[in-house]
């Protein structure tokens, strides 16, 4: 199907923007879903040398299809090396060998801290979420973290119900005080735009907005008084190569 014939969706833009972030990245750590799609797309279009690392222990996986789980057979069959889970977390993640980690979350606060544990009280949750998985140590140790999440008021909240993963904690100096090696979240990529921590305060600020999205809409979908960058960029629209590659990938 020719590219022209189909509207670009917000999700497509979000995935492509995430993929572009990996242009100069050596190694990326990815969970399943959109992050995995974005990383595979980046290998196809922006950075063929990109090394994909999955927490299942597959290092340098080269999947042709988008895996459903982080441990699909194709990841094992195409990996440069497969290691045990203890080795993955001790020798590879904990040691800080990964440049960029893609993470998702059910709740994000203004300092890019993440909740993937519960909505409501821990003892009597309204919604019990999957939990931490590898996220706390991944966010502490990887070179930088890029959060990928749908932009909605229930996701971008004033206060997390539970701090599963520390982004920038309570602001400047928090990560240093906690002894974290990585720089933490450098961007939150949503279906409306891109938020980046403002250097002085580590507070997420809207720095990029996707084509056709209204700033008020972004403010509306953010649970705190969202700051907007003085020079708000508009996302460069997905080009034909990116769109064709993404749609081809999704059709496989």
């Amino acid at each position, binding site marked *: 199907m020719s590219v022209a014939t189909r509207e670009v969706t917000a999700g497509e833009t979000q995935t492509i923007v995430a993929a572009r972030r990996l242009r100069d990245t050596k190694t990326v750590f990815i969970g399943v879903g959109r992050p995995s799609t974005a990383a595979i797309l980046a290998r196809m279009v922006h950075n063929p040398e990109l090394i994909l690392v999955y927490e*299942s222990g597959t290092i340098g996986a080269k999947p042709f299809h988008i895996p*459903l789980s982080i441990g699909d*057979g194709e990841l094992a069959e195409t990996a440069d090396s497969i290691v*045990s889970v203890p080795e993955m977390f001790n020798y590879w993640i904990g040691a800080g060998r990964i440049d960029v980690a893609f993470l998702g979350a059910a709740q994000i606060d203004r300092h890019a801290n993440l909740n993937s544990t519960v909505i409501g009280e821990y003892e009597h949750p309204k*919604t019990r979420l999957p*939990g931490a*998985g590898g996220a*706390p*140590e991944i966010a502490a140790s990887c070179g930088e973290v890029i959060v990928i999440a749908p932009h909605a008021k229930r996701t971008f909240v004033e206060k997390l119900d539970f701090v599963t993963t520390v982004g920038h904690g309570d602001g400047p100096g928090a990560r240093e005080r906690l*002894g974290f090696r990585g720089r933490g979240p450098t961007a939150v990529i949503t279906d409306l735009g891109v938020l980046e921590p403002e250097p002085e305060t580590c507070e997420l600020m809207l720095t990029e907005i996707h084509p056709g999205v209204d700033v008020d809409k972004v403010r509306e979908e953010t649970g705190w008084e969202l700051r907007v960058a003085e020079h708000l960029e508009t996302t460069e629209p997905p080009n034909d190569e990116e769109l064709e590659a993404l749609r081809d990938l999704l059709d496989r």
Partner: protein
Amino acid sequence: MAELMTLPDAIAELVSDGDSVALEGFTHLIPFAAGHEIIRQGRQDLELIRMTPDLLYDQMIGIGIARRLVFSYGGNPGVGGLHRFRDAIEHDWPRAVEIEEHSHAGMANRYAAGAADLPCAVLRGYVGTDLMARTTVAPITCPFTGERLVAVPALRPDVAIVHAQEADREGNVQLWGIPGVQKEAVLASRRSLITVERIVDELEPRPGGIVIPAWVITAVAEAPGGSRPSYSLGITDRDNDFYRFWDKMSRDREQFTEWMNENVLGLAKR
């Protein structure tokens, strides 16, 4: 030395009511057949330990045989949540389940400490999170640098159950593909059962092959297809459609119970 048994005999002999049981397999090689046999034999009040509960523990929790759950990620990988796991925690259905949750790094190191028979392992983790106050970890200081680290307690399950591709007639086991924490789980546990796709005359060394010698295994049972809907690399494929199906079907308590009755307990449809 590992004893070759039928799966029913192995479960009957190794797993008792109230035991702490670790059925491991990180996405790959999940021992579904063994878990279903535990359900069929009506074991109760189990402490279920597993990094990623996955569909298997969703089934065991939903059927009501779990007293306690120790885990680090309770999701349906790539699909969403685990509805029976949620229902048990959110609404105590069919019974209340006590939980202890960790991060993957913590759980992996807890198994490694158990395999080394050390009381704890040391890592950088948990700090700054609300998890720290909700689970069993403790601060520990490096005596050389003064750096504050975190200790996690060793895992020592009563029984570890894992699935592998093959075993020889002496009970030596070989698995390949994603190894997860299976070796650690077996070595950390008091008793162990390994189900295998096939029994062979001789293990032929393979790329990525990990051999667990018979003398550290309690029992080996042949269970062809025993990891479905997970997979055994090179022998069966992961049934991704089933993982998607489970997400829809298992939302409803009655549908779930019916499905378990028909497909696991082998009871006639009402």
